[in-house]
């Protein structure tokens, strides 16, 4: 008998278990199903530390959080409505994320003494008083799955690997979602090992039926579709959006894409993703190290291709010397930095925004390089495309900043029309010009870009390199005035990109008490916080910077329209430092350096404080 259905606006679910428990898989299935139904969705996979942890240990807990809503949302949610804990370790690690009175589903079969000990529980939490503030549902997930699959040909250990779908079946019931999408997915996934299709589907159904038949849940929930702009949508992860953005830039510009890389978490997926699209002429080269990888991109750019490289913090440190060569040689390459928590090896599976100043200044000498940051998973497409556009138009390396949080997070994306994509024109030089002497450092008067002359073009033979070059002719020069001039030209070229940036959008109040100024992966938390205050009618605005170098021309003006500038960052205050130096404004940082994204409530707390201070003045 179908139980009552309650309409709610949004829900947040966290699946947690051992790395081998398949939480990522069912999280993704729930995400896709929910997106297809028309909810807005945001996800946050939370991988265990980059260590192979023993089964059942705290270090081995893998989580997948998903937030969906009938309204537009921007974050994977702060606290959760439902926590699915496949073992005691998952419970221990993730319980603090569950809302009071939230639904806690645990696999009681995994709460044997050994597992409790591994998780550091002295006594069984299911029997103690600790969980009384939650709605606890102990389910014998393993036994129930085994029973449901006893007629199949699978071994017990194979059957046990299906239990995640039992759990998914329950959650689909709880939120009134159809099972079709997942069934289709299972069929496709196991097309080559068809013996697994039926059992997984059986487990899924069993979980669903289990809720139907038992008195476990008093109600089920429904989240109506969100209102989206009209268009065709898909669900997309940040790193995949980066892959598509790069291919799109290559396709639209007509430049072959050459991606040089060396694996590193969390940037490797861009290499993996691009490697699949050889039919777009995409060349990926897994090189011996990060230096070789950027070398390949530089060489490709010299040859007239779109040279791209990607890595994360430590890899970026290694690339610095070569990026500087691309800068002085004025060759268009794009350098992707999918940031993770530093310093040094740091916490490779956690997120952070702490490479901004490295990207600005981490090279010897005066070395200005444009920096473009994406703000959310789907935005990676537009942002990396913009990086390619700037690189080609201005003949300069461009840094594209993303981070682990947006790179691995997913959300619905309105697929753009190809005709909406900005133009990228390589404008190769094909002849020496009137003087008949090709001048490789003669500049475009507007952009200050120098000519791009591909090897293979008759009459444009020329030599470039990392020694200072004479203006116009490009010959090696140690002339003092020339050096100063070239340093100025290179800075001015980057500065002029600001003329090519649309006016800055301010969300919420256009002037007033507080401006939240952010960049990168904190967009969701900042926008949600801003929406909340704006809904209360408070004079608070939010600006999220896509271009970090140069800053938009109108930024100074905007900053002056607010009493306080708040700069929340997942670092110790890096944009803060730049804004203070540039605009001499006493901006204030809200900083979190925990390898975790902001919770909206953390922002609220700080903003409330500041609001109080402002009132006291």
């Amino acid at each position, binding site marked *: 008998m179908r139980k009552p259905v309650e309409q709610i606006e949004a829900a947040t679910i966290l699946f947690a278990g051992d790395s081998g428990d398949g939480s990522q898989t069912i999280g993704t299935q729930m995400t896709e199903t929910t997106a297809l139904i028309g909810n807005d969705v945001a996800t946050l996979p939370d991988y265990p530390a980059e260590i192979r942890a023993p089964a059942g240990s705290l270090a081995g807990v893998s989580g997948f959080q998903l937030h969906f809503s009938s309204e537009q949302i921007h974050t994977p949610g702060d606290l959760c409505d439902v926590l699915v804990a496949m073992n005691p370790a998952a419970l221990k690690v993730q319980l603090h994320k569950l809302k009071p009175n939230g639904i806690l589903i645990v696999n009681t079969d995994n709460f044997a003494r050994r597992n409790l000990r591994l998780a550091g529980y002295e006594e069984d939490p299911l029997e103690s008083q600790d969980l009384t503030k939650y709605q606890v549902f102990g389910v014998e997930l393993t036994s129930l799955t085994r029973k449901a699959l006893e007629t199949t040909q699978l071994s017990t250990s194979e059957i046990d690997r299906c239990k995640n779908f039992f759990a998914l079946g329950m959650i689909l019931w709880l939120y009134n979602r159809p099972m079709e999408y997942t069934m289709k997915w299972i069929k496709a996934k196991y097309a080559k090992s068809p013996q697994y299709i039926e059992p997984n589907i059986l487990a899924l159904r069993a979980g669903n039926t289990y809720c139907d038949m038992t008195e476990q849940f008093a109600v089920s929930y429904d989240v109506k579709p969100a209102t989206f702009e009209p268009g065709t949508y898909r*669900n997309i992860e940040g790193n995949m959006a980066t892959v598509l953005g790069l291919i799109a830039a290559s396709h639209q510009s007509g430049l072959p894409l050459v991606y040089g890389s060396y694996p590193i978490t969390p940037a490797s997926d861009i290499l993996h993703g691009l490697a699949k699209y050889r039919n777009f002429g995409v060349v990926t080269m897994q090189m011996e190290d990060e230096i*070789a*990888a950027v070398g390949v991109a*530089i*060489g*490709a750019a*010299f040859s007239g291709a779109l040279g791209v490289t990607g890595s994360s913090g430590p890899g970026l440190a290694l690339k610095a010397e070569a990026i500087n060569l691309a800068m002085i040689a004025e060759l268009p390459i794009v350098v992707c930095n999918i940031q993770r928590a530093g310093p040094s090896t740091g916490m490779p599976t956690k997120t952070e925004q702490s490479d901004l100043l490295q990207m600005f200044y981490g090279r010897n000498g005066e070395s200005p390089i444009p920096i473009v940051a994406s703000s959310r998973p789907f935005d990676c497409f537009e942002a990396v495309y913009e990086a390619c556009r700037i690189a080609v138009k201005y003949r300069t390396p461009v840094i594209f900043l993303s981070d682990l949080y947006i790179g691995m997070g997913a959300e619905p994306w309105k697929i753009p029309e*190809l005709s909406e994509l900005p133009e990228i024109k390589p404008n190769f030089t094909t002849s020496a010009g009137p003087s008949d002497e090709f001048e490789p450092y003669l500049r475009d008067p507007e952009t200050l870009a120098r000519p791009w002359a591909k090897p293979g073009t008759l009459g444009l033979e020329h030599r*470039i390199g990392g020694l200072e070059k004479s203006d116009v002719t490009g010959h090696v020069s140690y002339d003092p005035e020339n050096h100063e001039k070239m340093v100025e030209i290179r800075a001015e070229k980057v500065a002029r990109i600001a003329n090519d940036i649309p006016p800055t959008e301010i969300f919420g109040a256009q002037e007033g008490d507080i401006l939240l100024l952010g960049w990168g992966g904190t967009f969701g938390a900042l926008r949600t916080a801003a929406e909340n205050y704006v809904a209360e009618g408070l004079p608070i605005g939010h600006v999220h910077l896509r271009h970090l170098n140069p800053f938009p021309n109108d930024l100074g003006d905007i900053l002056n329209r607010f009493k306080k500038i708040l700069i929340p960052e997942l670092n110790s205050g890096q944009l803060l430092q730049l804004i203070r130096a540039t605009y001499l404004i006493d901006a204030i940082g809200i900083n979190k350096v925990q390898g975790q994204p902001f919770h909206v409530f953390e922002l609220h707390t700080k903003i409330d404080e500041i609001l109080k201070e402002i009132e006291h003045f």
Partner: protein
Amino acid sequence: MKRKRTSRIPVGAPTLTKDDFKSDQDVRWCPSCGDYSILAQTQRTLPELGIPKENIVFISGIGCSSRFPYYMNTYGFHTIHGRAPTIASGVKMANPELSVWVITGDGDALSIGGNHFIHLMRRNFDINVLLFNNRVYGLTKGQYSPTSERGQKMYQSASIGSLDTPFNPLSLALASGATFVARSVDVHTDHLRPMLKAAFEHKGTSFIEIYQNCHIFNDDTFILQRKKEHKTDHTVLLEHGEPLVFGAEHDKGIRLNGFQPEVVDLTDGEHTIDDLIVHDQHAEDTTLANFLAGMSDTPDLPHPMGIFRSVQHPCYENLMTNQIRTATERMGEGDLDALLHDGETWIVS
């Protein structure tokens, strides 16, 4: 010999000359530097290759030798220390039509650039690498390099002598899977030119070690192999299919004693040419090539000159191009709009 991919000058077009390959820049090496000769031989050889000069790219790292591209009227890129192989790989991959030459020094290739060097060898791009070995850092004024002899006191750095065992560049290249390995000498112009040509003709990475004199900081380090009066006794020319004979009167040879090379006197009545090792540059197995490479590490043996190994393996850029072709055949030419719509989509209206 397979046809090179590099496009050739159309028949009937004016032939190029040495002067076509000279850039307008003053050549700036010390008087008597061995680099001058290598530059001249290269400028003389390129017109013979039959490829348009706009299709030629010289890529170098940093060092005296690495100034080379500035003096060539081709495309050129004087990059950063040790990284030329990586940039050359990008150049070649992005446009396999180009004839790509890497110019490097013993420090550039084997010290800071050692890793890129060995990885370039194993990938087997169709790139030609010329290593100017002067056994010293010239540009930074005379420190020892990875090919400097142990214990050698250098102009300034190791005032008490280098402690490092030198690398043998050929052995390293062979161990890395190099498909074409050769050696020549800066001033042996009639030997160097055919080597340059053979390197170009070889499809795959070609590596030539060139003994080069640094007149200022390491004069005469190769005196025995460079100077006319010594070289007949201290070098042995490798010819495919020929026995290893040397000496002014062709009176000496190299034979195998167990696994060790040994010099024999062909005039002593005891030894004949049939005892000698016969060179096989096309052997797939590298044992012989390794053995020949090792000779220059053994005192009193002549240094082999010529082609140590030349075998045909697939080139990286061809394998990649094949992957692109196969993928395109299988999945169709990339359709961006379809790609963006890949997977499950839904429409909001």
